[in-house]
């Protein structure tokens, strides 16, 4: 059961990443492309945290409940990486949405096919 759950979490993470990649590559609307970026980010974060999980472990935080006892702890490195990646993903999303608003004010459309000239 444990292995099945682990592989189903990996499968869901890859599925979310592929769904986000589909939205980035195939959609025509600019806001939809940014939403696809967010979905891709979510799948990647889930995959990283699931790789670092050890069955039966507890969180790598020291508190009076675990000090002095023999406990198993999960891997803290992927959690620290993901903690940084979430904040950076939010920054990327904010900059991309600001660019979308600027493009809409210049060209009066959000369809990516109608924005032809690269010069602003």
């Amino acid at each position, binding site marked *: 059961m444990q292995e099945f759950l682990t592989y189903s979490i990996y499968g869901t993470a890859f599925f979310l990443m592929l769904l986000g990649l589909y939205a980035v590559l195939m959609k025509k609307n600019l806001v939809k492309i940014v939403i696809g970026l967010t979905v891709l980010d979510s799948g990647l974060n889930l995959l990283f945290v699931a790789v670092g999980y050890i069955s039966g472990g*507890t*969180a790598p*935080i020291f*508190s009076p*409940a675990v000090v002095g006892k023999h406990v198993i702890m999960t891997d803290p490195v992927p959690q620290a990486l993901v903690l940084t990646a979430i904040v950076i993903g939010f920054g990327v999303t904010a900059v991309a949405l600001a660019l979308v608003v600027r493009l809409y004010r210049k060209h009066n459309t959000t369809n990516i096919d109608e924005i032809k000239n690269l010069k602003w």
Partner: protein
Amino acid sequence: MDLFFIIIISVISLGAVFAIIRFIKGPTASDRVMALDTLSVMLIAVLVILGFLMKRYIYIDVSLVYAVLGFIGVITIARYLEGGI
């Protein structure tokens, strides 16, 4: 005691499944936002119960953050539907 908490979590999950069905069916945007609101309240209760089962005091902080910040997104979408912002 373990069986008691299994039954508790199962019943709350069944309620969450009903909210998910409303999230799929819901004809307007307001229905979906309402399903999101109810799901987040259910999640707060489930997180506190899980923190009790795992015997770690730190885990309660996550649900405290949910209770403080969870309603801002709903209020923003409601103001957009009203025509404000």
